[in-house]
């Protein structure tokens, strides 16, 4: 099963106003490893034409990217007001 199909099973309450994780594209440009694209279990980080593309809407708030990025590009916070992932089982 593809990761995209797995993510499609999930219930998110997406916050249209607040991106709880942001990246610094300047830092990502010079990144030699793009380890985020391998570490993130929700495939939020993808490399498109040499550029890191980040989708906060798919984030499951696992915290991995904040540790994975060794270059200080990831600004990680929790979503606000009950937004974000809503697990049914956990």
């Amino acid at each position, binding site marked *: 099963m593809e990761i995209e199909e797995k*993510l499609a099973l999930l219930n998110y309450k997406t916050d249209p106003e607040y991106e709880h994780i942001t990246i610094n594209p300047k830092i990502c440009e010079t990144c030699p490893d793009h380890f985020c694209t391998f*570490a993130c*279990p929700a495939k939020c980080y993808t490399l498109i034409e040499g550029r890191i593309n980040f989708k906060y809407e798919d984030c499951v*708030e*696992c*915290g991995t990217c904040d*540790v*994975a990025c060794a270059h200080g590009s990831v600004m990680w916070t*929790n979503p606000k007001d009950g937004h974000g992932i809503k*697990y049914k089982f956990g």
Partner: protein
Amino acid sequence: MSEFDVIVVGAGPAGSSAAIKMASQGLKVLLVERGDPVGSKNVSGGILWGNDLAAIIPDWEKSAPLERYVERKVTSFLTGDSEIAIDFKTKKFQEKKTGYSVLRTRLDSFLARKAAQAGAMVVTGVTVDSLAMKDGRVIGVVNEGETITADCVILAEGPNPRVAMAAGLVGKPNDRTVGIGVKHVYKLGENVINERFNLRGNAGFAGEYVLSFLEGDVYAGGFLYTNKDTVSMGVVINMATLRKNGNTHSFDIMEKFAQHPFISSLVEGGQLQEYSAHFVYEGGYEDMPRAYGNGYMLVGDTAGFSFSNGMILQGMNYAISSGILAGEAAIEARKDNDFSAESLSRYQKKLDNSPAVLDKKNFQGISNVVWSPMVHRAIPALLESSLYSMLYESGKPKKHLSQIMMKSLKSSGMNSKDLMVQGYRLMRRM
């Protein structure tokens, strides 16, 4: 005058246990949870070990939403072609339960409900932004620029404690202190689970696996637990080896585990209900932060209380016991009307004599062994080739076990001295 005696940040097992303890003794408690409903942000593998809840919920084995009790425990090495396992079943677990599989959305909302019944105010769907500080002590929490005051704040944020990190109370997690946990939940039905895992009634299966078939020297462990009518399956991936490899996706490792012939057959026909992930705290004794200070205490994963020695993965039990101890400390501090670091050091004293700390202390350095090439590559290779040579009827005269093992050892790339030394270290650490 503070608005609350204690504010607890996070309604997981640690936070809710602290809240239940304190509220039932008449403290004015606010329990704040960012998930709405409670539990919707939380993931764990899923076995709650021990009997710690009994101290605050005497009938917990009857009233809590438990899935199945552990009757059959498997510890296993998975290679590409083979599985070598210790399959331990005992009637003793039937009489005296040692652990139950749980699903966190259900368990956590149950515990938060208990906290509310005990008199705590439970607020869901609100994220605490930071701690409010004054004169070097914590005086409350901040949300959207407004401060809610309390004499003491208990941080129960889990393994990714943003508030504690921002305040500098815990270090930033790193490759050594966290692993990436990824999980599937399958719906299989009660009867299918019972038949497939050879179980009866609410007896359950708990399996832990060393995934030694992964390419490129990435180390990962797997787990598979039976719930009432679902199965929880997941992996914990070692961050350092994943980084070193630099070419493997974490979600592909989960899929590879799920596709392993001896694992996929266990959930065949099951419908994937949920995909989830959270990082898992793996720090050792030396990584533990000081669990108290002026006006605050840390509990559960935030304080570094989770434990794995390769045979058993534990966290929720320490979360509960540390939460209860912090609750006790707060009750005593309330009586003395003193929430200074000196007064709250009684929490550390309680912890120092508890399994939460002692297990960490006594198993120092275990993660170096659990995540070693010996455990992840050499031992499974040796076992596989030895067993294969012994059991494969080639039509030629049989060899002695020692000959087979020496030959397998050679092909595994280790010498016997290495194995002896590392094997001894493993036994000692476990």
